[in-house]
């Protein structure tokens, strides 16, 4: 596994128990926004469209690991159903959909910022949405595309692009909903990231953000527990001081025209390795914001 090529993407870089996370960061806002401790990560995104055979081989290896529920992305695999459930319910509320129907997100255009290997994007696509996944890591995008190809429905409903949120904004793209899961804690310029999320969202649309709180509990779990005691995540993967509290996030989002509608804690039961939604937001949480209508 080519760890030096580990991508700038949320699904391998951001999570607590991620053995593959090597400190590379989610790149969001072009030149000023990248907080990058791994020069190789940039190399990945600079490859452009011509890919050599070695790189193809590497991403194929990675595809297998990203989509291995027992591999380095295991916590994201197990988190995926609960973040999808929260997002489904939030978007149903926002767009007046029946959340008990089979494809409640039918026809909605969703942007998944920091889509990585496409885990969250595929789940949203299965609920009926047309999902655009973007990631600064080209390897992540190639993995996501390759994985989607196996299922014609997913293939038809997803498109993946190796661009940053800022680049998407430059193209004038807008979506019914924008999701950024396990991304914001790796972003250098958070206020600017929030402004971009707002600008990428249509009026009355929704933004869903999931991340890690900055509390004693999250310090214990994410830094002491995962990086030092269990050593499942390389030391330095997460910078606790960069974590954002729900209040800080809500204030920032409110400031860019995205008032918070609801929030839920996400709890990983260490015994069963299953996630559940709960009131306690002291470690992981997920929030839904609705964009104000400009009259």
């Amino acid at each position, binding site marked *: 596994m080519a760890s030096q090529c580990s991508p700038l993407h949320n699904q391998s870089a951001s999570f607590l128990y991620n053995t593959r996370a090597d400190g590379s960061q989610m790149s969001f806002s072009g030149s000023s926004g990248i907080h990058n401790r791994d020069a190789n990560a940039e190399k990945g995104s600079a490859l452009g469209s011509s890919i050599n055979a070695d790189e193809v081989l590497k991403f194929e290896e990675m*595809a297998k690991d990203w989509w291995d529920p027992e591999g380095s992305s295991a916590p994201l695999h197990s988190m*995926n159903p609960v973040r999808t*459930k929260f997002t489904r319910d939030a978007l149903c509320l926002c767009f007046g959909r029946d959340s008990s129907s*089979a494809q409640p997100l039918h026809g909605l255009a969703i942007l998944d910022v920091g889509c990585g290997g496409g885990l969250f994007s*595929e789940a949203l696509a299965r609920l009926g949405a047309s999902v655009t996944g973007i990631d600064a890591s080209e390897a992540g995008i190639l993995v996501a595309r390759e994985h989607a190809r196996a299922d014609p429905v997913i293939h038809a409903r997803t498109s993946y692009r190796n661009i940053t949120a800022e680049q998407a904004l430059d193209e004038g793209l807008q979506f019914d909903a924008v999701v950024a899961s396990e991304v914001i804690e790796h972003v250098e310029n958070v206020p600017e990231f929030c402004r971009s999320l707002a600008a990428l969202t249509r009026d009355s649309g929704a933004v869903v953000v999931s991340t890690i709180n900055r509390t004693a509990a999250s310090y214990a779990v994410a830094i002491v527990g995962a990086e030092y005691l269990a050593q499942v995540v390389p030391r330095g993967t997460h910078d606790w001081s960069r974590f954002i509290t729900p209040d800080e996030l809500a204030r920032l989002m409110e400031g860019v025209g995205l008032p918070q509608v609801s929030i839920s804690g996400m709890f990983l039961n260490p015994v069963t390795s299953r996630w559940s939604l709960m009131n306690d937001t002291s470690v992981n949480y997920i929030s839904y914001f609705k964009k104000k209508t400009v009259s």
Partner: protein
Amino acid sequence: MVGAALACALGSNPITASLRVLVMDRGGPTEVTSPLPEVPDLRVSTVTPASVQLFQDIGAWEDVAPPRSAAFQHMQVWDEGGNGYVRYSAGNVGLANMGYVAENRVLQAALMRRLKDFKNSTLFWPASLEALTLPSYAPEAHEGPSTNSLAELRLADGRTIQARLVVGADGARSRTRQLADLRTFSRSYHQRGIVASVRTQQANDTAWQRFLPTGPLALLPVRDGYSNIVWSTSVQQAMALEKASPQEFALAVNEALNGGSTPAGNPLLPSRSREEFVAPPAVSAGGSKQRSFPLTLAGAGRYVRPRLALVGDAAHVVHPLAGQGVNLGFGDVRALSAALTHAVETGRDPGELALLEEMYEEPRQRENGMMMVALDSLKHIFAPQSGFVASVRGLGLDLINGTPALKARIMKYAMG
């Protein structure tokens, strides 16, 4: 039958009704005449309240309900060799009945008829599976297709079908299981079961079961004054019984049911809560010719693979002793349809191995394994005719009969 029940369960739930379901069968759907033929078919099942609930949920119960099947109000189990017996009555526990006995073909026809109402299902027959390509287990396995590629089925007529999930509901000798290379274990009991439809001289509303030195004999009410016999015995006796004339067979059944001593219960145990022993009705000839079949216990080590799940007899075969076989299959249907509902709700791939393992295989192997062990050990306790085992057994039955809490617990388990 279990496969059709799954298709109905998926079709009747608005969430899973979005899944396109192809039901393939070797032959056409089972149909029954209306009214039913006078003599019931030999293959019958005990339908527990949990299974009745499943039929009601999918809207197939009214085609099974009496008079097309029979409810039984009592259950009585006793021992030829000793004094022990246990008797359950629905009235004593505030239930309308203890369960139903229905012909398998009545259950099948009810499900197939209901299946046609579900727009998401297509029935396809005759279909014979020739090859099955499934994705590899783990991402590390480089051989074969990638982990999320769709399953591909090739039929004998050359057709190929792609699916996100293949459900093998093709019985004890499952072709799907064989093609998926899932290992099985099995054990022969070196016994055969004799089945027959018989008339009873009095109306029968009880599921009777007597443990004989050679194995258990069950007499279950089916419909229209007919009852079904399932008699497990030595291969030798089974062969002889199969050749017997209807009159000879009825005589043998009556001797086996009513011969020897009548249990009086253990005088040392309190009799306050005990239900009195009731003698079973005499049977008479005039039903069907009796048939015999080998008894085995079999199971698959794994029920799932990426994009594959085995249900019903394809996953587990139990002793017909308590008529639980098909109920275990209906339990599989409940668990698998719950797993698929969860998958649709949370955008998971219905063929994802982790989903199938956690929400289907794990709970069902626990449940089915318990029942397999319970029936298997019951079989072994009752099989030998040693004086000691028989007397302990008699005492055990008596203890159960005289201990309401224990009795209720066992009944709850037996009723699913």
